[in-house]
């Protein structure tokens, strides 16, 4: 589709120059690093690549990563929907404060997110000491800490995607369903969910991507070794065994690409539904 702009458009050479700058910048800065990850991973042949992937440490890291997203994502999705319902369908005092609090993890550097949990569960803290002396549990440096830090960092994604759409859609349809005798669960599954499903999917995709790849926060609360996630494994191996680091990176990079593809598909779908051309 071409926009008819008559002679209120830039001269053709300016247009071409700007397009060239944009594409060059993007290619150098975004595409090239991505390509290099795959190039470097396969540089020493398929066998090396495969060995690096099936290494015991890698398999364990995959396990820890899957466990982490397996706990963090469902919990955050559930509570994200709950929070979005509460914030999107009702008005109450302190609502904007609550929204800000839910957004808080986004405003915090990952390292500082990790720091929060180190302080909370560290051996110098009251809670950490008490847990250790009473139950003999150490949370810091355990997989629990990894999961908690991941949950913290990915908490806002679902609510943040759902809230705008739920607010613009208002409560008319839900109220109509209520008047027709539907209960809360029925209203949610039959009226609300169909309206928000794409935004929800989008939120889940983003939440999952971040949970899978979180590095800063997890690095601070984890001790490495057998609790390594894939991200941490990359960090641990990149100085000693660069090819292994790249091999592991390809897994996460693939996940990133899938995320982008899904995101684009979802956007195209919503755009089509709204009758816009893409």
């Amino acid at each position, binding site marked *: 589709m071409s926009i*008819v702009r*008559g*002679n*209120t458009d830039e001269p053709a050479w300016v247009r071409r120059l700007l397009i060239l700058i944009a594409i060059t910048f993007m290619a150098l800065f975004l595409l090239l690093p991505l390509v290099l990850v795959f190039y470097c991973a396969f540089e020493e042949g398929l066998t090396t690549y495969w060995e690096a992937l099936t290494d015991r440490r890698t398999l364990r890291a995959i396990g820890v990563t899957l466990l982490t997203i397996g706990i963090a994502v469902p919990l955050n999705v559930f509570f994200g929907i709950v929070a979005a319902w509460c914030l999107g369908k009702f008005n109450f005092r302190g609502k904007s404060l609550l929204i800000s609090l839910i957004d808080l993890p986004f405003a915090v550097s990952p390292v500082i997110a990790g720091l929060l949990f180190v302080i909370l569960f560290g051996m110098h803290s009251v809670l950490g000491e008490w847990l250790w002396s009473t139950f003999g549990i150490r949370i810091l440096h355990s997989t629990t800490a990894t999961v908690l830090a991941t949950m913290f960092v990915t908490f806002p994604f679902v609510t943040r995607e759902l809230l705008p759409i739920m607010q613009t859609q208002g409560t008319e349809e839900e109220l109509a369903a209520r008047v027709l005798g539907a209960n809360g669960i029925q209203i949610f599954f039959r009226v609300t969910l169909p309206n928000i499903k794409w935004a929800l999917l989008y939120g889940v995709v983003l939440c999952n991507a971040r949970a899978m790849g979180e590095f800063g926060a997890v690095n601070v609360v984890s001790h490495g070794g057998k609790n390594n996630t894939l991200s941490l494994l990359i960090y641990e191996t990149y100085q000693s065994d660069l090819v292994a680091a790249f091999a592991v990176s390809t897994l996460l990079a693939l996940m990133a690409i899938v995320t982008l593809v899904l995101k684009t598909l979802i956007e195209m779908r919503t755009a089509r539904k709204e009758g816009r051309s893409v």
Partner: protein
Amino acid sequence: MSIEVQNITKSFGNFLALNDVSLYIKSGELVALLGPSGSGKTTLLRIIAGLEEADEGSGPILFNNRNMKDSKIGDRGVGFVFQHYALFRHMTVFENVAFGLRVRPRTTRPDNGEIRRRVLELLRLVQLDTQADRYPHQLSGGQRQRVALARALAVEPQVLLLDEPFGALDAKVRVELRQWLRRLHDEIHLTSVFVTHDQDEALELADRVAVMNAGKIEQFATPNEVFHKPATEFVMNFLGSVNKFRGQVADGKVRLGEQFIMDVPENTEEAKLFVRPHELQISHTKVPNSFNLRAVITRIHSAGARVRVDLETHSGDAMTAEMTHSRLSELNLENGQDVYIVPSNIHVFGADEHAIEE
């Protein structure tokens, strides 16, 4: 400055917005382009302005016989006013009006004092000199449109083009503003073209009206002529409601019932007869030497300046008549009454939808 466009065609994809349109506007004239949405009126205006380019093969666009087809909008000397004002919202009223002077090349740019003098003069002209330091969002719709007009006039255009200038305003403000615009035009005599879909606006304001439909100009004439002598069926329909009658054509004569209406060329096969509601008389008795049709009154709408009476003929056709309140009480009409309807003026159109002149 006169404006002439010749054989303009413009299509957007498969949609033919303008189909071989020609138009000549005299210097100092105020012309309305009137038509439903999609009739091509705005496209024609934008082509005159230079905001849109006509298709290959279209004729010239002449301003005082100078071809402007390849000139950019900034070089045509046109002032353009948009329906939604298009004011620069980060500038004050003063800066909005001054914009066209400030962007001139240094050699022709007036100095600040001169700009100030001219802007304030224009703001006085549009009666907004007290609002110079306000921002657009602090003004009412009517005020905003007057700022847009002052801004367009600041560059001393040869031609003023207005795209639905009153479309976004409340009904009351709209009437006030169009009377004001007419007075302004009488004062400065700038060749002006405005687009509207509101027939009252076009008929009241313009010197001549171009009625457009489906990319063509159906009729270009004075408001009086357009209303009383519509050239085509479309114009007839667009400028008010009509009652349709089936006429009979035989031997070069059109008849309605027994009554002879007019002579037509021998080869005419079909004639459509239209009667405006105010040209349809109601009578309790048969009127001699006229076409009379029996009808039943179905409803009387008397809340308004004039009374509208809905009727149904015995063959089931719906008819509408319009009259004054005094006429209504004279006739003493009631719902369900059986009456005669008598057309006092009949417009006749041929199969090609063009009016057949007597």
